């Protein structure tokens, strides 16, 4: 297919406006995910009684499907992104309510819905919608004081956080609170308010610590670190970092993947460290950092407040998820089931990450500066600009 600027179809327009460097970095992460899935998941699949390449096939299928979704979403205009986000918020919040009554319970948490034989995690798909809508509300709160946008933003956070805590899913709650707070800060609201939010977050964290036993246990194990071996999974993970050294033991030479039950999801970073060494880990880390930082730097140049905040929110969502996963793996954070985007196996998470990055690509596309264009007269409207 020849792409010409004379061609004004949607796809060619997309190709000439999309951030190629960002797209290339994302595709590099996807490629790394294919290779590392081959490294980590056959051992787990054999252990769980599946065919050796069961997880590899799933990973390739979901990621391929996810890439299509990502490109499709990135075709949208900023207004289209907001419409999609609003739809996602409504649909996924409704599903989160259903989960509470009709969900599959795994390890004491009701997080999954069964759809056509596949388990599906609505909270994953809610996150990008939440980030975009929260960003829009904060922008509206600044530019249109006549709208009750800020109370709506608080209500949005309150509703989502409540639904997540009911599952319970403390990690995701912390993630969305962090994204929401950063948006609050970046939208230009009073610093004093940030102190109040911080206080509430702290109180919530302490409440979670005392009211949810598994949170207490994990934090205790992380902070107190009483006996070596007591943190079992995490100690094994950290050991694989020290054993791998800088260059690793070599592909296929790892032992941790046969030991850890979550080697293909939450602890895939440790598998990479053991087999390919810290150098490969740093390369992977740099790829993630590059995607996040490039998006954030793009955000600082974005004149439109709603779009800028949405980019920050989506970038943070993606970046924090990667950071938390890697932080847990290297022992900087307490144990928390968070997947590494596009690297770990997991259907819902891959689709959610695809939507997140699709929106990010859509919002970072080059557009004419709205503020320099002749502005229409300010009339009260609902929804997107």
């Amino acid at each position, binding site marked *: 297919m020849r792409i010409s600027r004379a061609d004004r179809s949607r796809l060619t327009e997309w190709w000439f406006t999309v951030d190629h460097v960002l797209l290339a970095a994302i595709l590099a992460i996807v490629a790394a995910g294919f290779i590392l899935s081959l490294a980590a998941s056959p051992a787990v699949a054999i252990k769980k009684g599946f065919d050796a390449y069961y997880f590899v096939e799933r990973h390739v299928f979901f990621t391929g499907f996810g890439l299509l979704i990502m490109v499709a979403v990135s075709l949208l205009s900023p207004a289209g992104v907001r419409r999609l986000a609003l739809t996602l918020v409504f649909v996924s919040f409704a599903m989160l309510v259903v989960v509470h009554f009709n969900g599959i319970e795994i390890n004491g948490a009701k997080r999954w819905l069964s759809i056509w034989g596949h388990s599906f995690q609505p909270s994953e798909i809610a996150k990008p919608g939440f980030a975009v809508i929260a960003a829009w509300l904060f922008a509206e709160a600044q*530019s249109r004081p006549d709208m009750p946008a800020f109370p709506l933003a608080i209500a949005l956070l309150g509703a989502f956080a409540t639904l997540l805590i009911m599952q319970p899913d403390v990690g995701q709650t912390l993630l969305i609170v962090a994204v929401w707070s950063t948006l609050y800060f970046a939208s230009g609201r009073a610093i004093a308010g940030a102190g109040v939010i911080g206080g509430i977050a702290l109180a919530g964290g302490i409440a979670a610590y005392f009211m949810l036993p598994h949170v207490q246990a994990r934090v205790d194990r992380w902070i107190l670190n009483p006996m070596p071996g007591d943190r079992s999974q995490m100690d094994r993970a950290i050991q694989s970092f020290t054993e791998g050294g800088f260059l690793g033991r070599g592909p296929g030479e790892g032992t941790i993947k046969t030991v850890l039950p979550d080697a293909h999801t939450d602890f895939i970073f440790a598998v990479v460290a053991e087999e390919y060494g810290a150098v490969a880990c740093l390369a992977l880390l740099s790829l993630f950092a590059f995607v996040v930082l490039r998006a954030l730097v793009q955000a600082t140049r974005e004149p439109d407040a709603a779009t800028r905040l949405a980019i920050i929110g989506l970038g943070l969502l993606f970046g924090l998820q990667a950071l938390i996963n890697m932080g847990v793996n290297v022992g900087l954070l307490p144990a928390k089931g968070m997947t590494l985007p596009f690297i770990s196996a997991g259907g819902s998470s891959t689709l959610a990450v695809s939507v997140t990055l699709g929106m990010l690509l859509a919002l970072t596309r080059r557009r004419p500066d709205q503020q320099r264009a002749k502005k229409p007269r300010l009339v009260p409207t609902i929804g997107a600009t």
Partner: protein
Amino acid sequence: MRRTATKPRATASVDEVSLRLRAIAVTGAVGLAFLAVGGQLVRLAAVNSGVTLQSNISETVAHSFSRPDLVDRNGRLFATDVENPSLFADPGVIIDRDEVVEKLTQVLPGLNARELRRDLSDRSKRFVWIKRQIAPNLAQKVHDLGLPGVSFRTELKRAYPLSRLAGHVLGAVNVDNKGVSGMERYLDDSGSVEAVHGATLSERAPVRLSIDIGVQHSLTEELQDATKRYKAEAATGVVMDVTTGEVLASASLPEPDPRSGSAADTQQTDRITGGTYELGSIFKMLTVAESLDEGVSTLDTIYDVRQPMVEGRFTIKDLHPMGRPASVRDIFLHSSNVGAAMIALKSGGDKQKAFLTKLGLLDQGRTEAGPIAQPQVPKRWERIEQITIAYGHGVAVAPLQFAAAAAALVNGGELVKPTFLRGRSEAKKTRVISADTSRQINELMRLNVTDPAGTGKRAEVPGYRVGGKTGTAEMAGVGGYEKKSVISSFVAAFPMEKPQYVVMVMLFKPQATDETKNEITAGHNAAPTAGRIIARVAPLLGVMPEPVQAAATGVPGQAN
């Protein structure tokens, strides 16, 4: 920062800058978080050291030990590590389990097909040993089968090029190449052995034993010959340097094979260090030495040995009564029990006990290869014990300990500690008897071989000035001593004008044969065996022979 509805444009430009600053702050914070994770990555990778490798995860992999070589006193090889293939399987990768079992059992008939099938059926296991340390040609055959999931890991295996030679001293290693007994165990205990992955040969210097391969070989061969010749149940012998206590050879037949692991068979225990025996008349050396050293007797002191000695319900008799009063010299030469008892009684029990203690015969000894068997000492030390101990009954000691005591008596009177390592003897010497007493003991031992009436005359080796003492101890059996079951021993030293080496030979339950003139006493079996050993080892040890004509005053032609 808060905008008001009345002035939307006025604060816009200030807002722009501050908003941009806030976005940069967020970007910077996220960048720092990534840096923190990266820093931790580098920190963990830099920690990488062998120590963590060996803990937890790799425990099952690191099961191999790299050992330094063992060499004899002249640097000739006794034991070394060789790389050897071991066969293992990854059940998760095996495609056709039945094919694997069938083909492997064809090539390796020793495999248990049922156990193998069971081991391979658990596909969650990723590592199963099939057979460790197999011969390289068999490994090649298995390799040629081309079975997926069946593979080799090179391991270290201890090799003993001299097979059973000095097996007791060397000890044994287990399948992980870890020492379990003897000097192999010593290597582990002294920290010369390293835990390794796979097959990493030790880079440490070889450990030099005191054993001389030539002497060890001669001793072993002569003992084998003696067990056949005298139909003995077992035989032991030790050759020791009298000044350093270095053991040049130590053999206990039947010998174990170091390759077979532990010597579980009691017949194969090392009688030199692992068993205690009532040694009989060779103890008279000690009785006489004590009496001479204390000045209680001289060589010419006369004792009346015409009548058997009656003590309580026991009667002590001589095998060949002299029928006349005898000097200490005669008592030694004729090995008179009555005489030895009288000599001991004249000194008294306290002196006797103190003397044996001084020689270390009443306390447990120790060599590098581990503890020597604990001596059996009577609880009471009354008159009857004094009498029996005088001729070697009532106290049971390990042969190695007695050899060390004999070395002290002949070397000029200084105590030695038996050792299996070359050049490790202690510089500080403890005197146990005077040099003069030692000289007199040497004179008696030499006389016992040269005198036609001496019990040790069949040990003579022309030119090598052998001296020695015989001992025929009745073995303790059910309800008393068995007349026909004896331990016949001979403790010899040479060359007698200044002894360098002690040779001790023990034959267990020798039978009467034509060669021994239907006798089972030591003079007819242990003494000639010791002579034959000395005839072979003396040249190896660099002892210069005297011209034979000059020495031919004794009984010639005993050594063949």
